């Protein structure tokens, strides 16, 4: 009997059944994929870090190094199992040419190493420790995808020719979030190219027991050993390795939750419409003594079938797409050892979706209890009591056309019914507006204020080269004689040590120079004006727990100097941790210099940029607008793509939910539609009434969605941007798209869908629905 009932029901509503099945399958697929990916990712990371023997503690250091002192420390510390110091040859990207392609425009800090002897091995794609010969170069795995380089191609590093012998996996620097990348060369070749770059040291430790890591960290810090650079620990390496694929998995999980919600809505609206259609029959079944559970089974059967088919289909799809999504994980980290466990977890994910659907349908069907058999048989429709709003009455209405009035009135009288549709519209508006506002914000020129730089035209970066101060002076001399440049300044970044409250020392990058020439926006306070003032970036201020007016101690030439915090500003560059000061420091440990200039005629910027680029090949010259877009071009592009995708997804959800909701509403309201028709209202009157309901709900939805996007959405986006170093964040909104085009697009979709979805209202017969 159930099979016949299911077959009959399915043949009557093929399209909606198909849509629901597709959503169930998609949800099942996504859940299963997430489970498979999570297990594989964690397995692959463990394998990689195990094979590579990733250090438990690593201190990067630039500058002089006392290896004897370090070796003594390692020997004396009972937690240390193994210890080594690796050299990392940091080279200007312009000196690295892979095949035909120069890495000059690459944003990574590329460097060269030799294979380590004890641990922290660089592995080939089979997971084996690479044994590199003279003349061979192993390239980080990222460049396999990002460049056209192939094994056997030539590479020129600092003028020396190499052959690309393969690609390497680096358990430390594999992640895109790690800003450094290690190339592998032989010890002889390393010596040959050593003069073309600057040496950094990787001071690495493996501990006997990882649980003693924090104890070891404290010991290292208090021993006052080399620490001019970031410290990275084993858990952080693990996080870095898992984060980009982890984000992908999180996004898939989020989407699957969204898809499940849509599947639930499809089920809810179709089921409610079906209950309305069958109202009298349900009454009869109750009247002749069928148990509620028996009646429920009839309806549950169809959705059990849909859930089963969808889940099986979803699982099959997840197996099909698994390879595609695992490709990245396999490429970067290798195979995971627990693929059987992954498949089992995938099946658990599918079962979760299956049972969630059954439980949900069962929940919706609980309303059978409320159906009065007598009422159902007599009226054939549910006799819900509506809240009649006293103020909004037809006999006082002069403003709206009667059909529009009836539409609005219906929404006000049945608020609970429309709440689902409203929620979907609010979410859709939110999904459309937030990425778009974010895109507008990061692509607008005013985004510069979050980068801690002033309003100038040309930026000249001098870094990773020798004699920075002489080279900077050379540029400044030219600028001084250049009449097209109205003003310029040089800002030099150097590393200093600051003393924290517990007495330990930390490095701080301070940009020295005259900050009044191209002032930046300060979220608190003002620019440093005197020698004993310093301005901190928001992240630095936060981390150091400093406010405007507080003092910080900086060590200069071995002496403690107290500086007062004059201001706090946003900076999302250089990891968000910078500082600005005006004091003079004659030491030569310059990290980089930036020369900023403003032109008398902006139209000559490009000309000037190429003129200076030709003249000063050691420097990177950029048009400031291009600098902003270049720095964030991949982010801007991704957010742009995401915002377009978001519009499509939100509109599809809106259309689907509106369609199903309107179909349900027509089924529910067929009695009042018949009454209207009997009283002389035309089919187009009825359509206008439904359209008014839909437009009214969508206007409220859009308004709430926009408010939410500009409050919660802004706060969320702000939280992300703040974590990169901005101290305050506000959307720059494009009013035309945010307040006109997007709402119009949503209203039009809702309107057209409503007209299509309520076309069935015209077919409702008065005689069949006003039965006595």
């Amino acid at each position, binding site marked *: 009997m159930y099979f016949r009932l299911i077959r009959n029901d399915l043949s009557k509503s093929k399209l909606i059944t198909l849509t629901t099945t597709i959503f169930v399958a998609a949800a099942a697929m996504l859940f299963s994929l997430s489970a498979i990916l999570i297990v594989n990712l964690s397995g692959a990371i463990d394998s990689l870090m195990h094979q590579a023997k990733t250090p438990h503690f690593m201190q990067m250091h630039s500058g002089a190094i006392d290896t004897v002192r370090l070796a003594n420390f390692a020997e004396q510390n009972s937690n240390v199992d193994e210890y080594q110091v690796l050299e990392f040859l940091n080279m200007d990207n312009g000196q690295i040419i892979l095949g035909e392609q120069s890495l000059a425009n690459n944003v990574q800090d590329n460097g060269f190493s030799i294979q380590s002897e004890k641990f922290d091995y660089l592995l080939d794609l089979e997971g084996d420790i690479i044994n590199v010969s003279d003349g061979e170069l192993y390239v980080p795995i990222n460049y396999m995808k990002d460049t056209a380089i192939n094994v056997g191609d030539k590479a020129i590093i600092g003028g020396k020719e190499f052959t690309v012998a393969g690609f390497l996996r680096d358990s430390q620097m594999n992640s895109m979030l790690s800003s450094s990348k290690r190339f592998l060369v032989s010890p002889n070749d390393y010596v040959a190219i050593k003069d073309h770059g600057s040496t950094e040291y990787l001071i690495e430790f493996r501990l006997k027991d990882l649980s003693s890591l924090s104890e070891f960290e404290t010991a290292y810090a208090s021993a006052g050993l080399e620490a001019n650079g970031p410290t990275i620990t084993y858990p952080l390496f693990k996080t870095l390795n898992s984060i980009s694929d982890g984000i992908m998995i999180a996004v898939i999980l989020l989407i699957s939750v969204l898809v499940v919600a849509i599947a639930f809505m499809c089920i809810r609206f179709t089921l409610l419409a079906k209950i309305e259609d069958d109202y009298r029959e349900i009454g009869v079944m109750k009247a002749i003594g069928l148990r509620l559970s028996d009646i429920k089974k009839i309806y549950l059967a169809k959705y059990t079938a849909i859930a089963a088919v969808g889940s099986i289909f979803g699982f099959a799809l997840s197996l099909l797409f698994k390879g595609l999504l695992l490709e990245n994980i396999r490429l970067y980290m290798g195979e995971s050892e627990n693929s059987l466990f992954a498949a089992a977890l995938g099946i658990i994910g599918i079962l979760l979706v299956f049972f969630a659907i059954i439980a949900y349908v069962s929940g919706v069907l609980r309303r059978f209890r409320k159906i009065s058999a007598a009422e159902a048989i007599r*009226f054939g429709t549910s006799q*819900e*009591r*509506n809240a*009649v709003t*006293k103020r909004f*009455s*037809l*006999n*006082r*209405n*002069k403003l709206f*056309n*009667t*059909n529009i009035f*009836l539409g609005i*009135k*219906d929404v006000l*009288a*049945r608020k609970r019914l429309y709440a689902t549709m409203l929620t979907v519209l609010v979410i859709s508006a939110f999904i459309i507006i937030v990425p778009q506002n974010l895109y507008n914000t990061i692509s607008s020129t005013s985004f510069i204020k979050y980068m801690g730089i002033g309003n100038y035209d040309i930026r000249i970066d001098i870094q990773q080269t020798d004699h920075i101060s002489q080279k900077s002076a050379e540029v400044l001399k030219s600028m001084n004689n250049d009449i097209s440049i109205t003003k310029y300044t040089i800002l030099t970044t150097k590393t200093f040590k600051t003393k924290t409250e517990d007495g330990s020392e930390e490095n701080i990058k301070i940009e020295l120079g005259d900050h009044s020439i191209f002032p930046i926006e300060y979220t608190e306070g003002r620019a440093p004006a005197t020698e004993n003032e310093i301005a901190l970036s928001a992240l630095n201020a936060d981390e150091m727990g400093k406010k405007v007016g507080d003092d910080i101690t900086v060590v200069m030439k071995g002496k403690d100097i107290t500086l007062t915090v004059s201001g706090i500003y946003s900076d999302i560059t250089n990891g968000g941790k910078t500082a600005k000061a005006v004091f003079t420091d004659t030491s030569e440990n310059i990290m980089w210099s930036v020369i900023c200039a403003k032109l008398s005629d902006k139209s000559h910027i490009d000309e000037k940029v190429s003129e200076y680029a030709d003249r000063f090949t050691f420097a990177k010259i950029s048009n400031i607008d291009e600098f902003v877009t270049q720095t964030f071009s991949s982010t801007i592009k991704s957010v742009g793509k995401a915002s377009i995708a978001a519009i499509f997804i939100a509109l599809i959800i809106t259309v689907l939910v509106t369609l199903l909701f309107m179909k349900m509403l027509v089924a529910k309201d067929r009695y*009042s539609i018949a*009454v*209207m*028709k*009997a*009283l*002389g*209202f*035309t*089919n*187009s*009157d009825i359509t206008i009434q439904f359209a008014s309901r839909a437009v009214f709900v969508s206007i409220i939805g859009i308004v709430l969605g926009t408010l939410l996007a500009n409050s919660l959405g802004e706060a969320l986006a702000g939280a992300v941007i703040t974590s990169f170093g901005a101290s305050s964040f506000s959307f720059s909104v494009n009013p035309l798209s945010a307040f006109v085009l997007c709402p119009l697009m949503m209203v039009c979709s809702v309107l057209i869908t409503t007209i299509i979805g309520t076309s069935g209202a*015209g077919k409702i*017969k*008065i*005689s069949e629905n*006003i039965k*006595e």
Partner: protein
Amino acid sequence: MKKIIIGEHIVKSFGEGDEKRNVLDGASVDINEGEFVAIMGPSGSGKSTLMFALSGMDNIDGGKVIFDGDELSSVGEVELSDIRRTKMGFVFQQPTMLKNLNILDNIILPSMRDNRKNVAKISEKARELMKRVGIAELEMRDITQVSGGQLQRAGICRALLNNPKIIFGDEPTGALNTKSAQEIMDIFSEINAGGTALMLVTHDAKVAARTERIMFMHDGKIVSELKLPKFDGTNIDGRVGKVTEKMWEKGI
């Protein structure tokens, strides 16, 4: 006397194939302007279907219906709606009111379709009608806050508000107690005295006895007619007797 409705050989069938059944099987009906008629017949004889066919609320499969000069099967959906709204009034057994609206709003609803600007005038007229049928104090009430009889009176007000040429009533007193039913019939007689034609579908001999012509239906056809003088409030028992006698004769 001018005929407001001419129905000729009306056929209406339900079902398909072997299960197809003519509910109206060539029924012919004429109703004059200002006339008060009743349709009687056993259950399933086609009374309500005939009313739906004559009012254009249902399509017919054969024959024709001319209402006030317009053949209903040849006018479009919009014109048909206009005719129903402006020239016809309806009172059903169950009060067909919209749950979202209060009593007054339900009454003025069809009139507001075209005359929104005259809302004050329409409401005033509705209030007069409500006063006339004895529900003046209920205008702001929700439809669930009044009795069935009061709701039926509100339905009559709604039917009357556009000054229709005819009011169709499908068992209008069927759901009411005797006292309420009598009061409703008094209102119908009063309306008819004002010149509005009425056509009531009923099982009740007491209701039919108030009218001046009773058509008896059987198997989708009008099989007999009984004419009575206009009801003047007297001799109701004698009229009921005549109707009952005819019903016996026709086996209804």
